């Protein structure tokens, strides 16, 4: 084991260490710390925020091996209507380039069960890939239905081949449309159904599962390209309301460090946005959340942030410090 130094209190910057074309319009990126150190842990269903060199932030599900603590893998579909996110990944990003990373964060966790049905539509396979691996490892009874336009557009078929009949691959150009309700049948009691893919697939699944017990179906909407302000690369101001001072946070500093340099000591622990120790109240301004803790509602509330990793979307933040 390598005794890695504790992570520095800065924005997490990772290097692209690999880029592979894995299907029509799908590339995988492998990311690692420039110093080779350990990355924050993640669970199946997690995504990271990728802050691209052009300033755009996009979310991608992690689809690598969590037992490898030193690299992340994401799969990126080139959107035909790309507004500069996926096209940048496909056309510009190369091994050696640096990207900012927030999270990992999991809105789509795999809950314990003895039986799972996974339904993936296209690039929606990415969060399900580690789930499938985990369900198999735990000896659960599981099945994956993988829908796509055509075989050549469907990523990771090679990796899924070893699971044999548990994986049903359904390319529409070969097999035509699929009767989802017919495929699902009457799932055995306690089955958890996970679905990720385009909106119309999720809607079809919701209809097909309407009669099942609550909490059976769990979905993650595959958002084509998220709206959202681009991440700031410019410095921003942080006003400390109780202390009465203002500090400037430059891109090379975390808010925690900047505040500390102004003599305001905020307790922290993991410095990766995981443990929650440095929670700080936000009185004004919009935080750029990069932590692994807050869910979407809590993020939207905007009343607190974890200053070891999170930053600002606005020119100015007012913190309860």
């Amino acid at each position, binding site marked *: *084991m*390598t*005794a*890695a*130094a*504790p992570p520095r209190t800065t924005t997490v910057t990772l290097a692209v260490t690999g880029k592979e074309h894995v299907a029509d319009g799908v590339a995988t990126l492998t990311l690692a710390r420039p110093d080779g150190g*350990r990355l924050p*842990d993640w*669970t*199946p269903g997690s995504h990271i925020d990728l802050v691209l060199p052009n300033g755009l932030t996009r979310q991608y599900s992690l689809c690598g091996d*969590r*037992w490898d*603590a030193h690299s992340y893998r994401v799969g990126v579909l080139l959107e035909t209507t790309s507004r500069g996110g996926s096209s940048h990944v496909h056309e510009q990003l190369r091994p050696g380039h640096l990207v900012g990373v927030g999270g990992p964060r*999991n809105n789509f*966790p*795999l*809950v*314990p*069960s003895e039986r799972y049905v996974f339904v993936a539509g296209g690039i929606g396979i990415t969060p399900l890939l580690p789930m499938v691996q*985990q369900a198999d*490892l*735990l000896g659960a009874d599981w099945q994956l239905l993988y829908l796509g336009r055509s075989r050549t557009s469907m990523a990771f078929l090679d990796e899924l081949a070893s699971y044999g009949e548990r994986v049903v691959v359904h390319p529409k150009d070969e097999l035509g449309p699929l009767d989802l309700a017919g495929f699902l049948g009457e799932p055995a009691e306690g089955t*958890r159904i996970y679905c990720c893919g385009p909106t119309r697939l999720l809607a079809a699944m919701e209809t097909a599962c309407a009669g099942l017990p609550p*909490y*059976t179906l769990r979905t993650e909407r595959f958002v084509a390209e998220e709206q959202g302000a681009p991440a700031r690369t410019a410095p921003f101001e942080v006003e400390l309301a109780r202390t009465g001072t203002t500090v400037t946070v430059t891109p090379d500093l975390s808010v925690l460090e900047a505040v*500390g340099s102004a003599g305001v*000591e905020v*307790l*922290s*622990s*993991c*410095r990766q946005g995981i*443990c*929650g*120790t440095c*929670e700080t109240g936000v009185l004004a301004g919009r935080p750029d959340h990069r932590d692994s*803790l807050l869910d979407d509602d*809590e993020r939207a509330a905007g009343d*607190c942030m974890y200053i070891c990793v999170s930053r600002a979307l606005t020119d100015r933040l007012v913190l309860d410090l």
Partner: protein
Amino acid sequence: MTTTQKRPIEAPVVDVDPFDHDVLEDPLPMHEQLREAGPVAYLPKYDLHAVARYEEVHAALLDWQELPSSAGVGLSNFRFEKPWRPPSLLLEADPPRHDAPRRVLSKILGPRALRKLRDDWFADAEVLVDEVLADGPEFDAVESLSTVFPLRVFPDAVGLLPDGRENLLPYGDHAFNAFGPANDLVAKGEPRVAELSGWVSSRCVREALTEDGFGAAIWAASDRGDITPQQAPLIVRSLLTAGVDTTVHGISAVLYGLATHPEEWRRLRANPSLARVAFDEAVRWESPVQTFFRTANGDVRFGDVTVPDGAKVLMFLAAANRDPRRWADPDRFDLTRDPSGHVGFGMGIHQCVGQHVARLEAEAVLTALLQRVESVEPAGPPRRHHNNTLRALDSLPLRMTLA
């Protein structure tokens, strides 16, 4: 078969017994000996490897892949030995089984969830401090404060019914002793194990919990399918095992630090917002949880030394928290220091899920004391309480000068 080919030990041999009473009374010299022996040492008495430097302890805590917990976080190796109780779904579990219980409990005990307890706990602490001071300015802080406050607020927050709460401390004390070898400390607890375990288990079922506490929230997570109904009571058990003794000893530690460092008390009085820093500095300085074990999953390298597959690895959190390679003047209890990054709560996926609860309890007690008390001093020598895992006080006589 469990016999393995014995391989030569590569780590420097240090012939110490971390669970000997003399060492438990004052473990600091042994900690230094272990740190100075190298990045990893071998303790022949228990056939185990030990890490005591900050860098190695920190790295070991993060590395659940090579140093998993599911073979036990005590001396006992669950690969070969049967645990004394059904293993914890949190402490004694690895991913992926660890994921769901951890996720559920992290949310229930998270800083946001605790906000609604803050005002009540601060008021409770004021009431307690007033009660204690009404009996005079001199008292045993362990008996009157650090044992009383957590037992007043935490079981209510979990949602326990009033009866039987006196069982929590002896149960926790035994659970933490049981991580060590089968010595006299374990033997002392054994006569009551069945009774106490039975009581704790009986408190973990849905019907035994009020509708508004952490326990009910755990059961609600099971209703949503986020955990299974079989997991829910064991997760409640984790709260009851790990949530009382630790905070008791943590609060004792900060009171001990402040009473023996008058200038730090003055600093805190001048700036009460340092209460959280004071508590974490005490957790660094005293390390109420001294040690946890892991088990090597495959051969694990520490520097030039290989620790063989299946070996037990003892992580000295307390020694790491006073490693001069990491901390300036580490033996000093110092509120001007930034204790952030100490490993007193562990680190990584098993980092104390209740740390925010502990901080809130301690902040409440300190804030209440600061309002009423001008200065604190020892009123007699403290007395240690020995436990195979915990650094604790049995008695801490203090004298207060009222503000």
